[in-house]
């Protein structure tokens, strides 16, 4: 039984979300990953619209899309580090929710007992 946060809306995560498998990437704010880096928008800002995607965390599958985000939003992502996480099917569910600049953008709905900040490693970039 997956241990979802209690504030999830009905039908969230969506039925068409899938079990994750493989390596995904995520931007973090500091030099190492923290719990804050894996808070969803709704957790960071409870006044934000309470929709299902706001309870998910953005993940990127394709490294080229990391570059795309940095080029399109240099002031937002230009100095952020990237972590990689090897995900498996015990880590909640994930759904491809493409952005115009990043087709491999996924939304990850994370069970409360998963602590990705302990599982990820900083991506060494040239």
């Amino acid at each position, binding site marked *: 039984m997956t241990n979802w946060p209690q504030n999830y809306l009905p039908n969230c995560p969506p039925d068409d979300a899938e079990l994750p498998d493989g390596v995904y990437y995520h931007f973090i704010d500091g030099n190492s990953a923290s719990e804050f880096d894996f808070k969803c928008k709704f957790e960071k800002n409870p006044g934000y619209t309470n929709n299902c995607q706001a309870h998910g965390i953005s993940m990127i599958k394709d490294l080229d899309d990391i570059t795309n985000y940095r080029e*399109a939003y240099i002031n*937002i992502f230009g100095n952020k580090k990237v972590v990689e996480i090897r995900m498996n099917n015990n880590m909640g569910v994930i759904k491809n929710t493409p952005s115009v600049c990043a087709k491999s953008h996924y939304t990850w709905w994370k069970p409360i007992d998963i602590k990705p900040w302990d599982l990820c490693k900083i991506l060494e970039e040239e």
Partner: protein
Amino acid sequence: MNPVLRIKELGQLIQYEVYDYYDEPLFLAYRDELGHFYFARIVNEDTESNEWIFVAVSQNRFNMIRSGGLDINSAFSQAELGYCYHIGFKFGSQTPFFEGKINCESIPQSFLPHQGITLNLKTETLPKLSEQISERAIQTKRVLVNLHLEFPNNLRTEAPISKLGEILIATQDLLNAIGQAQKERATTRGVVPQNILSTNEMLLSGIGAGSFELELASATLSNLLDEAAIADSINEMVKLIQIGTDGEKLKNRLSQLKIRVASKYLGFLTSISNEVISTEVKWASPLPGKFGKAEITKLNAQIAADSIKRIEENKFNDIEVIGQLVGASLSQHDFEIIASEKKYYGKVDTSVIDILSGAILGNTYQAVIREKHNLKVITGDEETIYFLISLVPIGDDLQ
């Protein structure tokens, strides 16, 4: 960024659609209460707030940017008003803690993506034609056809005029040919009579979204007693399209309609298979219950066209003659018989080879000759082939 914003200068804005997202929308469109569009992009953030740049766009500009006709950089750096809005929000707030205009030339390049980056979203730049084609046919008292053409690689409701022209000409030619086949003895070549042309004439009466949709209207008004002749032609055209790729059914249908229709339907299929991914034809008459629709993909149009090119009409006729055997080749299986001053020559059926081997040139025989008449439907080329299927010596020649 909240889906609903209240900005002093712009009024209430409601989120229209999101283009880029990372934990929250980064680039999106808003609409105000009057339907005006704004693009908004995040340009900076800190631990408590973020900054955005908003640009007001006309409907036409919105369509161009959304469909990739104008890049994102230009949307802001070449704003129609000459300025954008630079607005800051505390996290969670619907109202800004600062807002102000910023001239296009003052926008820092770090606020915008590189030039040339576009949205490339399919965008309907014309209003859709009404779905109620039967209702409109009654209102206008005309037979109407909606031709829905899916052009490849076209993100806006636009169509190349040369390709469109080719399809429209092919459509009118097909309707003329069907009209002629239905109303009088069809000719294979030459000019279609003027009365057929005028009763089958279609006018372009509207264009709309839905990839690219054309509304064609009969040039003549429908008469309750004498339905516009064009209705029958269109109905026949739709039936042909409904047959799809079934070569046998196409052959049967086109054989009834004769060569000109086959040729013009081939022209129609060729024009759509060259230019569009899929074609849908809907039609309606002002008369109750008279409507229909058919659709065909590019691939199926190509298959149907190939089938038509292969269609032959074959007729067989067995002729009994008494004549003189004037030529025969056992190795080539050929024969030549003159009967009633007509020369028959062709191939010998295997069942007759033994009899032919004992036959004597110059003698008279009772023969059954199978006449096979082939007509290439699409070209009108005719060919008659003879087969000798029976040969019996008669009279004094009997050995």
